[in-house]
């Protein structure tokens, strides 16, 4: 593998990690507030569909993005009402939303476009285009740094930059602001927040609001940036992979980026090098490399990699007590 090929692999890794990273950060807010969010998948799926449909209808990808975020937000609020106000089981609510998204996107998509659940292919302004950073072309021929800048860093869709810039921002919000302190506290010991005179319900809804918006961006990225239109079940379990990455990252934003890049790399490798030849002895089939992210998910969720300490109050509805 030569250097340029290496850079291109990483470039692809960035693109493929983006959706995971956005979903993972979305989950981070929800779970840090004490709400399990198995419904990342469903929120992304509904957003991917709505974003593609609205982008197609209006011809504006930005309208699509806004609509996708709104759809995801509505799903997040349904989860909030069920699990915060009515203290329902958070897993069940999340799974129900996943099913709802899975069915709704296909039924509505087929009714609108008669393409078996797909939306028409997006083109032009209905799709995000690459941003070429300044001097990318001029620096292309500089050894080492040139390709890193112009291939790896420059030339991505805007949402890729949004996702990676969100990482330090999330870190800052979580550890340097009042909101972050309260958010972390409400996931660890909600009664400490309650007795301090801060609304537990309010904090958790604020967290889910952010979760909804970030998931919306993730879904819109999938159908308007990574692909050119919505396809049935196009999230393909990425919501669950993001959740695994979140656990792997022990609910910390910088680690979340690392975990998502690892998953992205596995996906990039399986895309770019379908059949890996091992010293001419045998060939690793593409099916194997494609399953790698899922195998890693199972390993992480099975708790094989270290002991993850989730927020203490996660999954428990808050009931005021004496």
């Amino acid at each position: 593998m030569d250097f340029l090929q290496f850079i291109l692999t990483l470039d692809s890794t960035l693109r493929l990690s983006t959706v995971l990273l956005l979903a993972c950060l979305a989950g981070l807010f929800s779970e840090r507030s004490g709400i399990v969010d198995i419904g990342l998948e469903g929120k992304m799926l509904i957003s991917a569909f709505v974003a593609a449909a609205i982008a197609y209808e209006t011809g504006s990808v930005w309208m699509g993005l806004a609509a996708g975020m709104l759809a995801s937000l509505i799903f997040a609020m349904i989860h909030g009402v069920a699990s915060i106000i009515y203290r329902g089981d958070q897993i069940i609510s999340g799974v129900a939303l996943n099913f709802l998204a899975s069915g709704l996107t296909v039924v509505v998509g087929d009714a609108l476009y008669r393409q078996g659940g797909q939306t028409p292919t997006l083109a032009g302004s209905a799709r995000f285009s690459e941003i070429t950073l300044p001097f990318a072309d001029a620096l292309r021929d500089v050894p080492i740094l040139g390709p890193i800048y112009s291939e790896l860093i420059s030339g991505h869709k805007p949402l890729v930059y949004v996702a990676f810039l969100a990482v330090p921002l999330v870190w800052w919000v979580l550890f340097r602001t009042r909101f972050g302190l309260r958010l972390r506290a409400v996931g660890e010991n909600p009664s400490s927040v309650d007795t301090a005179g801060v609304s537990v319900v309010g904090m958790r809804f604020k967290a889910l609001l952010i979760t909804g918006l970030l998931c919306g961006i993730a879904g819109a990225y999938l159908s308007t940036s990574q692909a050119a239109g919505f396809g049935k079940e196009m999230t393909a379990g990425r919501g669950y992979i993001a959740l695994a990455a979140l656990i792997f990252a022990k609910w910390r934003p910088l680690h979340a980026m690392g975990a998502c890049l690892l998953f992205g790399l596995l996906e990039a490798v399986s895309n770019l090098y379908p059949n890996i030849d091992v010293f001419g002895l045998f060939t690793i089939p593409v099916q194997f490399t494609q399953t790698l992210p899922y195998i890693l998910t199972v390993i992480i969720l099975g708790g094989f990699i270290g002991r993850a300490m989730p927020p203490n109050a996660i999954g428990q509805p808050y009931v005021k007590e004496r």
Partner: protein
Amino acid sequence: MSETAPAIELKGISKSFGPVQANKDISIRVMPGTIHGIIGENGAGKSTLMSILYGFYKADAGEIFINGKKTEIPDSQSAIAAGIGMVFQHFKLVKVFTVLENVVLGAEDGEMLTPSLVKARDELTNLAQEYGLNVDPDALIEEIGVGMQQRVEILKALYRQADILILDEPTGVLTPAEADQLFRILARLKEEGKTIILITHKLREIMEITDTVSVMRRGEMTATVKTADTNPAELAELMVGRKVLLRVDKTPAKPRETVVEVRGLNVTDSAGVHRVKDVSFEIRGGEILGIAGVAGNGQSELLEVLGGYEKATGEILINGQAIDLTGAHSDGQSRRKRGIAHVPEDRQNEGLIMDFQAWENMAFGYHHDPNYQKNPLLMDNRKIRDETQAKMERFDVRPPNPDLMAKSFSGGNQQKIVLAREIERNPDLLLVGQPTRGVDIGAIEFIHQRIIELRDEGKAILLVSVELDEILGLSDRIAVMFDGRIMGERLPEETDEKELGLLMAGITDTKTDHSVAEVEAQLANAGGAPRKEV
């Protein structure tokens, strides 16, 4: 007294939860700069009253006056604004946060955290000097001891400029030395003009520190008296509504042959923490061995090994015969066959199944009893039920109805059900953990009498309790555990709370004086990882 307005005045407070009236027309005046005790049995309505004052519940009727001004307290925020601070029995701290972060939480100055933290750090230094409340602001809550955590709670209230401090059962989790330290802090706060409300069920604390005391019984305020004008016996009578024997009445033990002998016992729990370290003791028939210690120093594991649900190395002989500590016969069933009965520490999780009826609970552990089998397939439920009814009457369980679910009995009556099940099996060795935790004074008296009776029948009893009064009152010999080891054995008539308190902190040199800081440092070092919360 009429010139100064009371710091807190409640007028005609009533509160019902469905058919249960938790507070009935309660009126109380707490004068500023005093320590006012509120005493009552569990369920007397003390906590409900304080929750109303802190804005957790809304009263059905009644008025609240703070410093003479009528005040509405719909939520905790308003209570804090009115200058009320509350130290709950179960601390409201975030364990993975530092002391500083816990103090600041909810009382931040702006959107950004750093300025708030800087300000709070200065303020903590001031408060530490003013009231002698020394705490390391950068320590994580999970790494500091319970006494220190309580100080953080007090600091939280003071940081929010509380003038009125409510403490709910503050000494329940403290060693005697820590409790003394707390009382010194409270006295200091009082000197500085703070008003303190102390909720407790311990008569000794009321007598020791309060100026005035109000007694609650069944949701009503039965009396408010000056502490100097009353005595423990009178208060106990006011609490329970009848004369109560505060001391355990017992004759000297008449020990017989050795029933249980423990040699070199070691326990390592599932997390790999060495919980019990080389423990040896023996108990003879007709004798009670009391194990004192701060919760989490290996006492629980000791009971679990003897009761048959924790593995161990070493040797345990019952009536001269070794019992299996690791193999197929190290389970509870085998232990019962060898004459060991167990009243576990955690009655609601290990002693009973709360959603099962009393008669079902009475059969647990003894469900293989041939007497309970109607035929090879079916159990004789009617017989178990009738037997349960008789046992409930003998143990004064109220109401004596075998069809009620375990959870519908009060703590004291639940404990009587467990005791009835275990004692009526006539065991050679009875293990009892925290027999009176969460149990009312009236029931405590009864439970203690039954344990003494069993002793007088010549049975061996191993008592584990965090209540030193109970250990001193019941035991014929006292062993103190610290960090998994037995620090020493004492006779109850030759020791006192102070000496036991030092042993509980691992200090064996009990003759010289030790500072509170030293005791605390010792306690903080004790044990490995914190044990599961009970």
